[in-house]
């Protein structure tokens, strides 16, 4: 049940809070599961009103994650808030008097924490961050609405209110009269009063909880949309802007559109976000995609890629792909063809790579031209890595480079 501990100061997180975020703060600091912490806090709060008061005061004194000062510090400058609290003191005196009048010692015990909680509540209400105030406002909404009330379900509300009053009256009666069993009576009384609250306010609270969840989902969706917009802006919109600027150069426009199309495609169908081409090139298919990307970006040519199967790279396959890249660049530079086909097939015993163009081709028997020089370097590279290369070409008939590398099975 223990998660990682956060060594820093205790602070109330912005996300994942239920009320003041103290349960989450404690959980983050101690590493104890947040649900356990919350159950503990609720029990603590129920056991004596004191627990609630501690929670409210802590809310004042523990800073929120994204704030520098505490609500308490701000409250000291809030003279009206302090005045309001001063006004609570007569309420305390009154409750003392009342308690002694009906001979209920428990009430005076409850009065102190109630007063402290109420005071802290007022200060948080007045000085909390915007989101905290919104939370409290919403939490208090049912209380404020009782008088105004939406007429939608007056009947239901009347029934609930009646039931609540009966329960509350029973609770108070148990608390004040039930002297016979000194232990059980107060407990039963508290339970009845709580039940009354649940009956009257339960549906509202549920509603609020649901709204909070919906709001959270809405925010997540909004964040996703923002990220999507940023991505689209970085890639698609930039490219469109570039295309407009190069409208006079059809070749450049085609090149830009092609690169963008490829990037979008690998994003939509392979889940690779734009701009991440250089990362995680750990498989044959990924590197072949990279070769296509680089060659199309650097030369005015379309590279048609077909990959069958896939496997992780080792140094031999890296040599194969390096040779394949060289052959593709070679075709792009010299063939004069509009399209180069790149076909890679991964099989259990080896990987094959074919680079084909329908360009001007060359006679392999000719004296070393640039192209032949490159052809020889491809050949040498493959042989050193334990593979082989076959180059087929004839003047005017295009050329095809066939590369094959056997696979070494990890033992």
């Amino acid at each position: 049940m223990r998660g990682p501990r956060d060594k820093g100061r205790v602070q109330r997180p912005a996300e994942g809070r239920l009320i003041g975020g103290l349960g989450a703060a404690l959980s983050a600091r101690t590493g104890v599961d947040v649900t356990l912490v919350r159950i503990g806090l609720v029990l603590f709060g129920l056991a004596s009103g004191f627990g609630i008061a501690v929670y409210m005061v802590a809310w004042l004194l523990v800073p929120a994650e994204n704030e520098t000062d505490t609500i308490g510090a701000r409250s000291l400058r809030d003279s009206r808030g302090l005045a309001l609290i001063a006004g609570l003191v007569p309420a305390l005196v009154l409750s003392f008097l009342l308690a002694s009048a009906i001979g209920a010692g428990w009430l005076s015990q409850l009065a102190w924490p109630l007063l402290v909680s109420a005071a802290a509540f007022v200060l948080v209400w007045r000085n909390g961050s915007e989101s905290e105030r919104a939370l409290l406002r919403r939490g208090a909404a049912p209380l404020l609405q009782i008088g105004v009330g939406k007429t939608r379900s007056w009947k239901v509300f009347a029934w609930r209110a009646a039931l609540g009053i009966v329960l509350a009256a029973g609770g108070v009666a148990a608390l004040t009269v039930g002297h016979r069993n000194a232990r059980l009576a107060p407990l039963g009384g508290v339970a009845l009063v709580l039940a009354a609250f649940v009956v009257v306010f339960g549906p509202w609270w549920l509603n609020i909880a649901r709204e909070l969840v919906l709001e959270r989902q809405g925010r997540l969706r909004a964040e996703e949309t923002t990220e999507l917009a940023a991505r689209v802006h970085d890639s698609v919109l930039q490219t469109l802007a570039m295309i407009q600027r190069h409208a006079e150069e059809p070749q450049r426009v085609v090149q830009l559109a092609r690169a963008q199309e490829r990037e979008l495609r690998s994003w939509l169908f392979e889940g690779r976000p734009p701009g991440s081409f250089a990362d995680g090139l750990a498989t044959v298919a990924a590197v072949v995609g990279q070769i296509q990307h680089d060659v199309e970006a650097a030369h005015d040519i379309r590279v048609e890629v077909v990959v069958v199967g896939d496997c992780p790279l080792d140094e031999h396959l890296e040599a194969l792909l390096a040779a394949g890249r060289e052959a593709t660049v070679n075709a792009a530079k010299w063939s004069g063809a509009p399209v180069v086909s790149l076909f890679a097939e991964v099989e259990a015993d080896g990987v094959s790579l074919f680079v084909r163009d329908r360009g001007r081709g060359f006679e392999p028997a000719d004296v070393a031209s640039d192209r032949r020089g490159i052809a020889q370097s491809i050949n040498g590279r493959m042989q050193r890595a334990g593979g082989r290369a076959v180059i087929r070409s004839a003047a005017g008939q295009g050329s095809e480079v066939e590369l094959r590398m056997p696979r070494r099975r990890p033992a």
Partner: protein
Amino acid sequence: MTGAVPRVFLVDDHHLFRSGVRSELGDAVEVVGEADDVEPAIELITERRPDVVLLDIHLPSGGGQLVVEAVKRHDPGIRFLALSVSDAPEDVIAVIRAGARGYVTKAISGPELIDAVQRVAGGDAVFSPRLAGFVLDAFAGMPELAGATPPVDPELDQLSPREREVLRLIARGYTYKEVAADLSIAPKTVESHVSAVLRKLQLSTRHQLTRWATERRLI
């Protein structure tokens, strides 16, 4: 092939793209209608009965296979050629399995497209390099996979060595004619191999075929 100009119907939700294809096809075919979504496409195609339907794989209200399936129920003689930018193999295979006679990408050149339309009109299958790659991938490695369910019907669930060779050459960018020359067989034989592969693709009940595309095979 009848020798007559094939009557073609275009289904694509991008107006710009439809007019582009129209102008690329030029006089080589007769375009008898256009539609931008599944419902109007089904209605107009069954009404006008073209020889070939050029069908986008993704339409606003669903995949192109909806059109193929609905039209084939009325009129099994109408032929479909899938034409798309989509790279997702499962979408392409779904349209082919519904009954399309081939798949080409939108990057195809005008003359190549005309050639493909004429082939489909003549009853042949049209495999672009990409589709050949998808099919090789879909049927790949089955016999060696230990523990995998054995093919239900070996005739349908496996490619013959010759069919594999043909598909590999197509994936490498060879035309049918070049494939024929490379394998020293008649062009007609290449076409029959490709048609056989198409039939297997459409009739095989191997469940891997419908599922394979979700994860790329790492071997």
